[in-house]
Each structure stands twice: as structure tokens, then as C-alpha cells.
């Protein structure tokens, strides 16, 4: 008689439990539409403590000038400002609400209050968004130019072909953005075709390029019928892209934290730890022989990172480029190790914050459906050409990933704040 199928009560119970359990752990964009849900309390606490620090430091600075303090104030100022705006908006909201609830309010005033309430409600989400943006610490390398490494992964020839297309995509993207690029290393595979990449490193020489391009690190997957396929089957191949920070030439770096010549810097590479080999060494040199071999191989002994370079006819130039790449890789590895620590910490609290490293599949390019999907932000663009031309499509995808990164950072920070309150001594060491 009943049309509703019977469900066992335990299953029913479990399904509600699962839904309740999962919700807070899936960070999803576009869900924060409510006025009050814009900021988590943990985040707000962090913002307040930073704003407090700002006012304390400002008081200090009024007494005696110190460059370091001034710099820190400069960093904190946007947070303090936005927090102030957010607070005043909230206050006026509360005031207006109490005005509305008060039965003694004049009807004319009431209509005005309703209008004001609407506009305040509108401005609050944007304010909390900008507060979030201000709270996210800048990536230490964001201002640097970057190196982009492209290497085919699984998929043989097809991966090499697609790697070449990615190289084209990024070079045209950069030229559209007005970034100057130069090819540091370009190796094509053996065989008749010239467009089968085996490794490429390009330098994007514009400040801020790392911040822009770092969304691209990871494994890019392609699904299509390759040119080399005779039976019309769709293949799936992978190309790995790595974005590394490129450090300015020695001496130029005014910021001591990034100056790799300074032994106290985090990114200092001890020349003693690097073995340098010429591909064919030994025997008489100088005027006696005219060596045309100019290949250089650098090995960083503690980490085992190897860089070999043979693109230029000059040994000197090859060595310079090899050092540049080695430094970038080491800096990236160190930064990654640091982030990993942080992630471990957050994972302990949150249960599992997704983190995309270089080993993860980040994006799929599907030729059959002419779509490009980014697996982090979840965005799908149905115009593959505009992505592969490095045009607006790619811009949109990268933009969505940047937003996703900010959300991740916020979620992580909220988790950290929670951890801080739960075990203050454990996090204090950070």
C-alpha cells in the first residue's frame, strides 16, 4: 500500500550521520553566502591578534624607529584596516537590527533602517572576503620570477607530443601576460619528429611570475586520440610541470631571506656540497686542445639532486644555468618540506586537508569533449582551444585555482587556530 520503499532504521541513521560528519571537511567554494558564516571564529581570533600586534607595534614605532618593525607594520596594516571596516559594518548591523526590533521606532526611520540594513548586508561578504585575502600570508617566493619545467610522464611518444603543446601553451600565455620568457633547456626526443619533448625548462623573467604560475605545478593529464594512433583509440597520458622560484643573480637580492649567497639564508647552497663534473675532463687543456664539449653536471650531494646542462656552447653559460636550476630546485624542496610540516600539523586537527603537490594529478585536458577540468578548484572550461592557446580559458582556470589556494590556506589557518587553542604548547614552536 505504501509507495515509499522500506529503509532500515539503522541505515537511515547512518546516512544522516555521514552527511553531518562530512560537511565541515569538504571546503567548497560558493557556499559562504550567509552573512554570519563568512568567517570562522578561529580566523577572527587570528585576525584580532594580528590587529592587536599592529597597534602595539605602531605604538612602539612612535617612540623609536626600527626598519624591521616598520616592515612588519606594513604587512599587518591591511589586515588591521579591513578588520576595522568589518567591525564597524557589523556594529552598524547590530544597531540597525535593534532599531528595527524596537517597537518605539518611528516608521520613517524604520524604512530608512531597512534600506541601510540591505546595503550593509551586501557589503559584509565582500569585506569578509577581503579580510580573508589579507589574512593569507604571502608566499615567500611570490614576488620572484620563476622557472617552469615540463617533462613527459606516462604515455610514451604521446606524452612527449603533449608536453610540447604545454610548452607552447605556457609561452603564449606568458607573452599574452607581457612576461618575458627564455628557454633555458630544450631537449627533444630522438626520432623524425621535432615536436616530441623530453625535457624543457623555461625562465619566466617577470617579478611576481612565481605567484602567478605556481598554480601549474603538478601532473597534467591528456585524453585524446594521439596523432600516432592508427586505430582511433583514445589514450590517456601525463605530463608533469614543475614551477620553481628563480632567484636573482648574486648580490642583487636586497632581501636577506632570499639572498642565496648569505650562508645564514634558508636558501643558501654550500658550494662544498655540490659536485661539479665536466662531461669530458682530464688531460691537457687550454691552448693544447679546443674542447667543444661544454656539458656540465652538478650533483647536490646531501639531497641527490642532479642537474645537467648542455644547451649552450659555452661551459661558463651552462654552469651558470645549471646553478640557477639547482638553486631553484633546492629552494622549492626546502619550502615544500616546510609546508609538509604545516600540513601534517593541520591534518592532525582537521582530519585531512587536501594538498596538491607535484605528484598529484591536477588537470585533465580532454580533446574528445573539448574540455579542460581542474581537479582542485573543480572548474571545467568547455573551450579547450582557448586554454591550449594560453588565452582567456587558461587565465580563468588559473584564477579559479588561485582562489582555491586561498580557501585552502584559510581552512588550514582556521585548523591551526583550533589546534593552538587545543594544545597551545605544541604549536607555539612554529
Amino acid at each position, binding site marked *: 500500500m505504501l509507495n515509499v520503499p522500506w529503509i532500515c532504521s539503522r541505515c537511515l541513521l547512518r546516512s544522516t550521520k555521514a552527511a553531518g560528519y562530512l560537511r565541515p571537511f569538504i571546503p567548497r567554494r560558493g557556499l559562504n553566502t550567509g552573512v554570519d558564516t563568512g568567517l570562522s571564529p578561529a580566523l577572527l581570533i587570528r585576525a584580532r591578534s594580528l590587529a592587536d600586534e599592529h597597534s602595539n607595534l605602531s605604538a612602539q614605532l612612535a617612540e623609536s624607529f626600527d626598519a624591521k618593525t616598520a616592515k612588519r607594520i606594513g604587512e599587518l596594516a591591511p589586515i588591521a584596516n579591513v578588520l576595522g571596516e568589518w567591525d564597524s559594518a557589523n556594529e552598524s548591523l547590530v544597531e540597525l537590527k535593534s532599531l528595527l526590533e524596537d517597537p518605539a521606532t518611528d516608521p520613517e526611520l524604520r524604512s530608512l533602517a531597512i534600506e541601510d540594513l540591505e546595503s550593509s548586508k551586501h557589503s559584509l561578504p565582500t569585506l569578509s572576503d577581503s579580510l580573508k585575502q589579507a589574512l593569507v600570508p604571502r608566499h615567500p617566493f611570490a614576488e620572484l620570477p620563476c622557472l617552469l619545467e615540463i617533462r613527459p610522464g606516462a604515455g610514451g611518444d604521446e606524452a612527449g607530443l603533449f608536453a610540447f603543446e604545454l610548452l607552447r601553451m605556457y609561452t603564449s600565455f606568458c607573452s599574452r601576460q607581457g612576461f618575458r620568457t627564455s628557454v633555458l633547456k630544450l631537449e627533444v626526443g630522438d626520432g623524425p619528429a621535432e615536436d616530441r619533448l623530453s625535457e624543457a625548462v623555461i625562465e619566466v623573467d617577470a617579478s611576481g611570475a612565481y605567484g602567478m604560475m605556481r598554480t601549474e605545478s603538478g601532473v597534467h593529464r591528456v585524453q585524446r586520440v594521439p596523432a600516432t594512433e592508427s586505430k582511433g583509440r583514445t589514450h590517456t597520458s601525463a605530463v608533469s610541470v614543475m614551477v620553481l622560484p628563480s632567484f636573482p643573480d648574486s648580490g642583487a637580492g636586497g632581501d636577506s631571506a632570499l639572498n642565496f649567497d648569505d650562508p645564514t639564508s634558508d636558501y643558501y647552497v654550500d*658550494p*662544498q*656540497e*655540490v*659536485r*661539479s*663534473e*665536466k662531461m669530458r*675532463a*682530464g*688531460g*691537457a*687543456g*687550454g*691552448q*693544447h*686542445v*679546443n*674542447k*667543444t664539449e*661544454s656539458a656540465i653536471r*652538478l650533483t647536490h650531494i646531501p639531497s641527490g639532486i642532479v642537474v645537467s646542462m648542455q644547451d*649552450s*656552447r*659555452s*661551459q*661558463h*653559460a651552462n*654552469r651558470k644555468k645549471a646553478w640557477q636550476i639547482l638553486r631553484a630546485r633546492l629552494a622549492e624542496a626546502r619550502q615544500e618540506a616546510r609546508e609538509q610540516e604545516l600540513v601534517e600539523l593541520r591534518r592532525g586537527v582537521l582530519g585531512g586537508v587536501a594538498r596538491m603537490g607535484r605528484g598529484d594529478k591536477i588537470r585533465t585536458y580532454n580533446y574528445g569533449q573539448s574540455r579542460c577540468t581542474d581537479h582542485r578548484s573543480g572548474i571545467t572550461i568547455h573551450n579547450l582551444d582557448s586554454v591550449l592557446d594560453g588565452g582567456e580559458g587558461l587565465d580563468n582556470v588559473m584564477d579559479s585555482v588561485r582562489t582555491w589556494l586561498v580557501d585552502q590556506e584559510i581552512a588550514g589557518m582556521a585548523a591551526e587556530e583550533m589546534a593552538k587553542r587545543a594544545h597551545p604548547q605544541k604549536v607555539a614552536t612554529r
Partner: protein
Amino acid sequence: MAKVTPGGRLQQNKLLRSMCRARSRGVPLQYIIGDQPFGDLQILCRRNVLIPRAETESFTVHASKLILKRLDEHPEVTNPQPLRILDLCSGTGAIALLLHALLANKIKQMTILGIDISSTAVTLASKNLEHNLHHGFLLDRARTEVHFRQGNVLSNHDSNFPHVDKVLHEFPGFCNQSGLGCDVLISNPPYIAPNSFWDGTTGRSVRIYEPKLALVPSLETDANMEEHIRQEDVFYHDIFQSAMRLGAKLIVFECGSYAQACRVVGICEDIAGACARREELAFHIVSSSGLEPGTHISGSGPCAIIIERSMASEA
């Protein structure tokens, strides 16, 4: 790449084939292509002029660092005057030009003079100056600050070529009231011994295609007659004498091996001792591989001799 017409492609293939054939005969790549990167510069290479080597490149870079270090430590020494650098046996001019490229950002005024006995080399060096100016590898200042002249470095009184001293008289920078002088003297003279030229130490391609004039010192000089100096070392003897006359504060020589470097240091010490100035000078030998961090120092490669005059003696 530009579009190529069928006829043009045919010509290209022909050219490529002839280049490959030349290379298979052992013609140095740099003579075929026409240039060689040297630091950030592009040095044109022509027959009858020695091709600049990678070791020379690292010695030049090292020399520029030494110059800057000296200026940093004693800013008062050369400030009123422009820095004077003399490059003897300049060949393609690679050393002189690279020094200007490396120093121009830090030093406001300088004069660099390259001297070579071969007119082909002097012409090519001037061409290299223009070439690198044209490509923007050198500052415009280089046009007035770097010069190349033909001259004889040896003291064998060959009347066909003016001696270094005579050439220097033309340059107001290098001669003042107190006579001739220069601050830095750098040289990569011919240093191959006649027997190692033939016994296989010297590469076949070098022996056949590169100028012997730039590789093996010629026999008839005063020094090796009188003082029993080995033929491969005669240039160092004469150049060091010039350096002492000019009062150079920093002298950088390239030589073929560690053994030769030790011999040359001995010769130089004798000369300095003869004019009672041995105490003022500090001698160092560095190997080209030793300059690069992380490379194991091997005994067989070329070395540079660095001779510095102590600051106290200048005052």
C-alpha cells in the same frame, strides 16, 4: 624560422653539407660557425686567430673579481685616475672585452688596451668590439675605453713592429709625468713547448687549423739565448719585465700546466729579485678547475699565475 624557398633550401643543404665536411676534417667548430660564446659576449672567430678557451674565460672572470676586491678594500688607490688594464697577446680581444663587460657596472672610468703582434688579430678584435656593442653585450662606453693596437710584446727589437712601450706612449692614460704605467696586466701568451706541439699533447685540430704563432713561442729572442729559459716560457720573462717597468699592481698569466706555472713563478721571482722588489710581490697559482666550486683539482689542466703587489709598497 623564416620561410625558405625551395631554391634557398637547396642552398642551405649545400651549406650544411659543406660545414659538416669541414668539421669531419677537423676544422674547429668555431671557425665553421664563426663565433664562440665567452662569458656573456659573443666572440667572432676567424682563421689565423686563436679561438678563446673555456679556461681563459674562467681566469678572466676570476681576474675581474680580484680587481673588484682590491678596489673594494682600498677605494682611495685608483679613484682619481681611470683604471688602466693592459691585455698582452690579446688575439680575438676576448679577455679585454669580457673584462670591460664585467667591470663596467662597478668602475666608472677605465682604459683597456689589447696588444697583439698579428694584424689579423687586431682587426678581428676591433670587429669583436663593434659586434658586441651592436648586440648590446657591452656598454657604449666600451667604444672609447677599449682599444686594440698592433705591437710586439717580446724584447727582440724586431723593427717590423713597435714595442709595447712605444705603443703605450700614444695613450695618455698609460703615460703620465712619471713615465709609463698600468694597474692591471693580464696575458694569455703562447705557451706550448715545441715538443708537446708535435707529440700528441696538442690536439690535431688545433695543430693543423689554429695559428702556430699564437701557440708556440718563436725561437729567436734574447731571453732564451742568454738566460737558458725554456722556449715555452720566454713570453712570461719578457712580459713580466714589462710589468715591472710599468709598475702593474695585479698581474695575471695563463699557462699550460702546474709545472710550467712553477717554472714561471721562479723566473718572475728572479727578475723581481734583480730589481729588489721581491718583497712587494705575492705569488699564487690557481688551476682552472680549482676556481669552480665543487670541482676536484687536477694537476694536468692549465693554471693561472696571479701576482699581486702589496698595498703597503704603493704608498
